[in-house]
Protein backbone atom coordinates (compact mmCIF):
# COMPACT_ATOMS: atom_id res chain seq x y z
CA UNK A 1 0.00 0.00 0.00
CA UNK A 2 1.27 3.44 -0.97
CA UNK A 3 0.72 5.26 2.31
CA UNK A 4 2.07 2.37 4.36
CA UNK A 5 5.42 2.52 2.57
CA UNK A 6 5.63 6.28 2.90
CA UNK A 7 4.71 6.06 6.58
CA UNK A 8 7.30 3.33 7.09
CA UNK A 9 9.97 5.49 5.42
CA UNK A 10 9.04 8.51 7.54
CA UNK A 11 9.09 6.44 10.73
CA UNK A 12 12.48 5.02 9.82
CA UNK A 13 13.78 8.52 9.08
CA UNK A 14 12.55 9.80 12.45
CA UNK A 15 14.25 6.87 14.19
CA UNK A 16 17.52 7.45 12.34
CA UNK A 17 17.43 11.17 13.15
CA UNK A 18 16.75 10.55 16.85
CA UNK A 19 19.57 8.04 16.99
CA UNK A 20 21.91 10.83 15.84
CA UNK A 21 20.44 13.59 18.01
CA UNK A 22 19.28 15.40 14.87
CA UNK A 23 15.49 15.01 15.01
CA UNK A 24 13.35 18.00 14.11
CA UNK A 25 9.69 17.76 13.21
CA UNK A 26 10.14 20.27 10.39
CA UNK A 27 12.67 18.05 8.64
CA UNK A 28 10.50 14.96 8.86
CA UNK A 29 7.41 16.86 7.68
CA UNK A 30 9.31 18.35 4.76
CA UNK A 31 10.62 14.99 3.59
CA UNK A 32 7.12 13.52 3.86
CA UNK A 33 5.71 16.41 1.78
CA UNK A 34 8.54 15.94 -0.71
CA UNK A 35 7.61 12.29 -1.16
CA UNK A 36 3.96 13.18 -1.74
CA UNK A 37 4.95 15.84 -4.31
CA UNK A 38 7.27 13.40 -6.03
CA UNK A 39 4.60 10.67 -6.23
CA UNK A 40 2.07 13.15 -7.65
CA UNK A 41 4.61 14.31 -10.24
CA UNK A 42 5.28 10.71 -11.22
CA UNK A 43 1.57 10.06 -11.61
CA UNK A 44 1.26 13.14 -13.86
CA UNK A 45 4.01 11.67 -16.06
CA UNK A 46 1.92 8.56 -16.48
CA UNK A 47 3.58 6.27 -13.96
CA UNK A 48 1.46 3.78 -12.05
CA UNK A 49 0.93 4.53 -8.37
CA UNK A 50 3.37 1.79 -7.41
CA UNK A 51 6.04 2.91 -9.88
CA UNK A 52 5.65 6.56 -8.84
CA UNK A 53 6.07 5.62 -5.20
CA UNK A 54 9.09 3.45 -5.97
CA UNK A 55 10.73 6.26 -7.92
CA UNK A 56 9.98 8.83 -5.20
CA UNK A 57 11.52 6.65 -2.51
CA UNK A 58 14.58 5.94 -4.66
CA UNK A 59 15.11 9.63 -5.45
CA UNK A 60 14.81 10.84 -1.88
CA UNK A 61 17.61 8.54 -0.70
CA UNK A 62 17.82 6.23 2.28
CA UNK A 63 16.72 7.43 5.74
CA UNK A 64 20.24 6.73 6.99
CA UNK A 65 21.79 9.00 4.33
CA UNK A 66 19.38 11.84 5.13
CA UNK A 67 20.01 11.42 8.85
CA UNK A 68 23.78 11.45 8.32
CA UNK A 69 23.54 14.81 6.57
CA UNK A 70 21.22 16.17 9.27
CA UNK A 71 23.60 15.01 12.01
CA UNK A 72 26.25 17.31 10.57
CA UNK A 73 23.96 20.23 11.53
CA UNK A 74 23.95 19.36 15.23
CA UNK A 75 26.66 21.41 16.92
CA UNK A 76 29.32 19.23 18.48
CA UNK A 77 29.21 21.42 21.58
CA UNK A 78 25.51 20.66 22.06
CA UNK A 79 26.06 16.92 21.89
CA UNK A 80 28.95 17.12 24.33
CA UNK A 81 26.91 19.28 26.69
CA UNK A 82 24.05 16.78 26.71
CA UNK A 83 26.43 13.94 27.45
CA UNK A 84 28.03 15.98 30.24
CA UNK A 85 24.66 16.73 31.82
CA UNK A 86 23.76 13.05 31.61
CA UNK A 87 27.03 12.07 33.27
CA UNK A 88 26.61 14.70 36.02
CA UNK A 89 23.13 13.44 36.81
CA UNK A 90 24.24 9.82 36.85
CA UNK A 91 27.03 10.70 39.30
CA UNK A 92 24.52 12.64 41.41
CA UNK A 93 22.21 9.64 41.56
CA UNK A 94 25.03 7.33 42.56
CA UNK A 95 26.33 9.70 45.23
CA UNK A 96 22.90 10.48 46.64
CA UNK A 97 21.92 6.83 46.78
CA UNK A 98 25.14 5.74 48.48
CA UNK A 99 25.39 8.61 50.95
CA UNK A 100 21.77 9.10 51.96
CA UNK A 101 20.28 5.64 51.67
CA UNK A 102 23.19 3.32 52.51
CA UNK A 103 26.12 5.00 54.26
CA UNK A 104 24.49 7.91 56.13
CA UNK A 105 20.73 7.53 56.45
CA UNK A 106 18.87 10.77 57.20
CA UNK A 107 18.46 11.50 60.88
CA UNK A 108 14.81 12.42 60.73
CA UNK A 109 12.49 9.58 59.74
CA UNK A 110 10.21 11.85 57.73
CA UNK A 111 13.15 12.83 55.54
CA UNK A 112 13.10 9.42 53.85
CA UNK A 113 10.14 10.03 51.50
CA UNK A 114 11.54 13.35 50.31
CA UNK A 115 14.97 11.86 49.63
CA UNK A 116 13.43 8.83 47.92
CA UNK A 117 11.42 11.14 45.67
CA UNK A 118 14.60 13.09 44.96
CA UNK A 119 16.38 9.90 43.91
CA UNK A 120 13.48 8.90 41.65
CA UNK A 121 13.33 12.33 40.02
CA UNK A 122 17.05 12.42 39.40
CA UNK A 123 16.97 8.88 38.01
CA UNK A 124 14.13 9.83 35.67
CA UNK A 125 16.10 12.88 34.58
CA UNK A 126 19.07 10.68 33.78
CA UNK A 127 16.97 8.71 31.34
CA UNK A 128 15.46 11.92 30.00
CA UNK A 129 18.86 13.45 29.37
CA UNK A 130 20.04 10.24 27.75
CA UNK A 131 17.04 10.35 25.43
CA UNK A 132 17.40 14.08 24.90
CA UNK A 133 20.11 13.52 22.35
CA UNK A 134 17.26 13.47 19.88
CA UNK A 135 15.23 16.15 21.62
CA UNK A 136 12.11 14.39 20.40
CA UNK A 137 8.85 16.31 20.84
CA UNK A 138 7.59 14.24 23.75
CA UNK A 139 10.80 14.27 25.77
CA UNK A 140 11.30 18.02 25.87
CA UNK A 141 8.37 18.89 28.17
CA UNK A 142 9.32 15.96 30.42
CA UNK A 143 12.90 17.19 30.56
CA UNK A 144 11.95 20.80 31.34
CA UNK A 145 9.34 19.90 33.97
CA UNK A 146 11.64 17.29 35.52
CA UNK A 147 14.43 19.84 35.77
CA UNK A 148 12.10 22.31 37.47
CA UNK A 149 11.14 19.54 39.92
CA UNK A 150 14.81 18.83 40.56
CA UNK A 151 15.43 22.51 41.32
CA UNK A 152 12.43 22.61 43.64
CA UNK A 153 13.59 19.51 45.52
CA UNK A 154 17.05 21.00 45.78
CA UNK A 155 15.53 24.09 47.41
CA UNK A 156 13.52 21.86 49.77
CA UNK A 157 16.70 20.01 50.75
CA UNK A 158 18.43 23.31 51.53
CA UNK A 159 15.45 24.49 53.57
CA UNK A 160 15.23 21.19 55.44
CA UNK A 161 18.95 21.32 56.24
CA UNK A 162 18.62 24.89 57.51
CA UNK A 163 15.66 24.01 59.73
CA UNK A 164 17.47 20.93 61.04
CA UNK A 165 15.25 18.24 59.51
CA UNK A 166 18.05 17.04 57.23
CA UNK A 167 21.71 16.76 58.05
CA UNK A 168 23.97 19.61 57.01
CA UNK A 169 25.38 17.99 53.90
CA UNK A 170 21.88 17.94 52.41
CA UNK A 171 22.25 21.70 52.00
CA UNK A 172 25.35 21.17 49.88
CA UNK A 173 23.61 18.51 47.79
CA UNK A 174 20.50 20.67 47.47
CA UNK A 175 22.60 23.61 46.30
CA UNK A 176 24.35 21.44 43.73
CA UNK A 177 21.08 20.08 42.38
CA UNK A 178 19.56 23.57 42.24
CA UNK A 179 22.55 24.89 40.31
CA UNK A 180 22.45 21.86 38.02
CA UNK A 181 18.74 22.45 37.35
CA UNK A 182 19.26 26.17 36.64
CA UNK A 183 22.12 25.47 34.24
CA UNK A 184 20.08 22.81 32.46
CA UNK A 185 17.09 25.13 32.06
CA UNK A 186 19.31 27.88 30.70
CA UNK A 187 20.89 25.39 28.31
CA UNK A 188 17.54 24.03 27.16
CA UNK A 189 16.03 27.45 26.45
CA UNK A 190 15.80 27.66 22.66
CA UNK A 191 16.60 31.03 21.16
CA UNK A 192 13.43 33.01 20.58
CA UNK A 193 11.15 30.12 21.60
CA UNK A 194 9.33 28.93 24.69
CA UNK A 195 10.78 26.27 26.95
CA UNK A 196 8.26 23.65 25.89
CA UNK A 197 8.38 24.29 22.15
CA UNK A 198 10.29 21.92 19.97
CA UNK A 199 13.47 23.36 18.43
Amino acid at each position, binding site marked *: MRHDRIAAYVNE*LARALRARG*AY*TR*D*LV*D*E*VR*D*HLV*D*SIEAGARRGLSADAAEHEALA*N*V*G*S*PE*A*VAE*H*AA*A*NVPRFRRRMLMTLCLCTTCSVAYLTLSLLILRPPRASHAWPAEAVLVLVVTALTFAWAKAGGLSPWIRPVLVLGTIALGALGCVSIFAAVTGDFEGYSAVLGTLFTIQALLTLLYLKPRGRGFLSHP
Partner: protein
Amino acid sequence: MLLSVVANTPGHGYAIAEALRSRSDAVIDLAEGTLYPALHRLENGGLLSGRWSEVNGRRRRVYQLTAKGARALTQKRREWNLFARTVYAVVGGGP
Protein backbone atom coordinates in the same frame (compact mmCIF):
# COMPACT_ATOMS: atom_id res chain seq x y z
CA MET B 1 23.79 26.61 -5.71
CA LEU B 2 20.86 26.47 -3.29
CA LEU B 3 21.20 30.18 -2.59
CA SER B 4 21.14 30.97 -6.29
CA VAL B 5 18.01 28.85 -6.84
CA VAL B 6 15.99 30.79 -4.25
CA ALA B 7 17.63 34.14 -5.06
CA ASN B 8 14.87 35.31 -7.37
CA THR B 9 11.92 33.20 -6.31
CA PRO B 10 11.31 31.78 -2.85
CA GLY B 11 10.46 28.10 -3.02
CA HIS B 12 9.80 24.92 -1.06
CA GLY B 13 12.12 21.95 -1.03
CA TYR B 14 10.57 19.98 -3.87
CA ALA B 15 10.53 23.05 -6.14
CA ILE B 16 14.16 23.76 -5.28
CA ALA B 17 15.14 20.16 -6.10
CA GLU B 18 13.30 20.39 -9.42
CA ALA B 19 14.96 23.72 -10.24
CA LEU B 20 18.39 22.26 -9.49
CA ARG B 21 17.73 19.30 -11.75
CA SER B 22 16.31 21.33 -14.66
CA ARG B 23 18.94 24.11 -14.50
CA SER B 24 21.72 21.51 -14.59
CA ASP B 25 20.06 19.42 -17.33
CA ALA B 26 19.77 16.60 -14.77
CA VAL B 27 23.54 16.52 -14.25
CA ILE B 28 23.02 17.41 -10.60
CA ASP B 29 21.01 14.46 -9.37
CA LEU B 30 21.48 14.35 -5.60
CA ALA B 31 19.59 12.24 -3.10
CA GLU B 32 16.70 14.65 -2.67
CA GLY B 33 16.25 13.97 1.02
CA THR B 34 19.72 15.36 1.72
CA LEU B 35 18.56 18.72 0.37
CA TYR B 36 16.61 19.46 3.56
CA PRO B 37 19.53 19.20 6.02
CA ALA B 38 21.42 21.54 3.66
CA LEU B 39 18.53 24.01 3.64
CA HIS B 40 18.32 23.88 7.44
CA ARG B 41 22.06 24.46 7.69
CA LEU B 42 21.75 27.58 5.54
CA GLU B 43 18.78 28.68 7.59
CA ASN B 44 20.69 28.19 10.85
CA GLY B 45 23.48 30.26 9.37
CA GLY B 46 21.04 33.08 8.65
CA LEU B 47 21.46 32.81 4.88
CA LEU B 48 17.92 31.58 4.27
CA SER B 49 14.69 32.10 6.14
CA GLY B 50 12.05 29.37 6.13
CA ARG B 51 8.41 29.63 7.08
CA TRP B 52 5.40 27.35 6.76
CA SER B 53 2.73 28.66 4.43
CA GLU B 54 -0.08 27.45 2.19
CA VAL B 55 0.99 26.78 -1.42
CA ASN B 56 -1.66 25.40 -3.80
CA GLY B 57 -3.78 24.34 -0.86
CA ARG B 58 -0.90 22.43 0.76
CA ARG B 59 1.15 23.40 3.80
CA ARG B 60 4.75 23.95 2.69
CA ARG B 61 7.93 25.27 4.20
CA VAL B 62 9.04 28.02 1.84
CA TYR B 63 12.61 29.29 1.84
CA GLN B 64 13.79 32.70 0.75
CA LEU B 65 17.09 34.47 0.68
CA THR B 66 17.94 36.83 3.54
CA ALA B 67 20.04 39.98 3.21
CA LYS B 68 22.97 38.05 4.66
CA GLY B 69 22.31 35.27 2.17
CA ALA B 70 22.28 37.74 -0.72
CA ARG B 71 25.67 39.09 0.35
CA ALA B 72 27.03 35.54 0.70
CA LEU B 73 25.70 34.65 -2.75
CA THR B 74 27.41 37.68 -4.31
CA GLN B 75 30.67 36.72 -2.62
CA LYS B 76 30.38 33.05 -3.67
CA ARG B 77 29.64 34.02 -7.28
CA ARG B 78 32.72 36.23 -7.29
CA GLU B 79 34.86 33.39 -5.90
CA TRP B 80 33.41 30.89 -8.38
CA ASN B 81 33.97 33.19 -11.36
CA LEU B 82 37.57 33.73 -10.32
CA PHE B 83 38.08 29.98 -9.85
CA ALA B 84 36.45 29.15 -13.21
CA ARG B 85 38.46 31.81 -15.07
CA THR B 86 41.64 30.49 -13.49
CA VAL B 87 40.88 26.89 -14.48
CA TYR B 88 39.99 27.92 -18.04
CA ALA B 89 43.18 29.95 -18.25
CA VAL B 90 45.19 26.88 -17.30
CA VAL B 91 43.42 24.12 -19.19
CA GLY B 92 42.05 26.21 -22.05
CA GLY B 93 38.54 26.37 -23.41
CA GLY B 94 35.71 28.30 -21.87
CA PRO B 95 31.97 28.39 -21.39
